[in-house]
């Protein structure tokens, strides 16, 4: 698949039904902290469950919770496909 950054892709490029693990966050400040507080840290498993027809936001399964993220947040989460 996509190999943009050494096997890492931004989360918004992860297709529905594929699982991935977080490898790094590229956001900072408040946005970074928000992601951390949702349990999105290095090694966290994430799976996109479904997309809004317009493609934004996408609902993700994260640590047993369903969380909708818009692409401006998900493009700053780098993941590696499992």
């Amino acid at each position, binding site marked *: 698949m996509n190999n943009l950054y050494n096997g890492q892709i931004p989360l918004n490029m992860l297709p529905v039904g594929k699982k991935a693990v977080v490898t790094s966050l590229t956001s*900072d400040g*408040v946005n*970074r*902290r*928000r992601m*951390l*507080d*949702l*349990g999105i*840290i*290095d090694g*966290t498993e994430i799976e996109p*469950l*479904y997309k809004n027809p317009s493609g934004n936001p996408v*609902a993700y399964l*994260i*640590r*047993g*919770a*369903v969380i909708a993220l818009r692409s401006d947040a998900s493009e700053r989460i780098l993941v590696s496909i499992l």
Partner: protein
Amino acid sequence: MGLTGRSTGAGLLNCRGIHTQNESEQLIVALAGNPNVGKSTLFNGLTGLNQHTGNWPGKTVTGARGICRHKDKSYVMVDIPGTYSLMANSAEEEVARDFICFGRPDVTVIVADATCLERNLNLALQTTEVTGRVVLCVNLMDEAKKKKISIDLELLSRRLGIPAVGTSARSKKGLDALMEAIAALAEEPPADKRLRITYGDEIEAAVSLLKPAVADALPEHIDSRWVSLRLLEGDVKLLASLSSHLSRDLTVDPGISQKLEEAGALLNHTDIGRDNLRDMMVTRIVKTCESVAREVVTVKKEGYAERDHRIDRFLT
């Protein structure tokens, strides 16, 4: 009601002040938790009032108050806006944080969603850093049961070192047991058995260096370890709230600012910068939530539960 988002924090704090002066029999209980976990439903069930519930526009933005009578005692229940974290990002989150941290409730109830307990534990563990007077209310037990999720509440309580009670607020199940736990904590706080999160040798050394000066400057009801950690990570918004609560700025206290500088130098030696520090702290808490959840949550017939989960999400 009737408080605007901006004035609510101060309003609640004033209310608490009035309470201590005039109605010493009434105990203040904060109902806090992540968004949409059933805080207002619980509030309504306990007070007989009718706070708006549901997703939108049921979102609670002000701190409604109501009375709950339990065994000859009156409790003032405060319905706090939902928040994922005590690191506030929005006005509502600030209201929630300020009430939990500086409103001096007699008991803080962290309402959690039983169907995704792990994420909810983050706020619970952040709160137990601030105060030992916390009850964990694991709500939506009926939903969890439907999804074949079971939670060992007794083990959960032991692991966190605070009481944990299961409820289904929509059908008013478990409310008595919850009030019992609240009453027990309010009347006679038991020995402090809180799970204490530690952040590794470097950060702990910095805390040890700073904490005595902080403890000297703080009133007894504010946890000096917690404030030391916030000073180290430089949580500007929280420190501003603390300053207005104390009517003084801790960061300009000569004793504290000197120790803070020393602690900062200590951390710089170990390559832990401020951003890094924050990441390390959150990561420690998230990992603790993960391991506690792994111990106490069991999902039967996982395949079935996962499919079920997905289907009903599509339907709603």
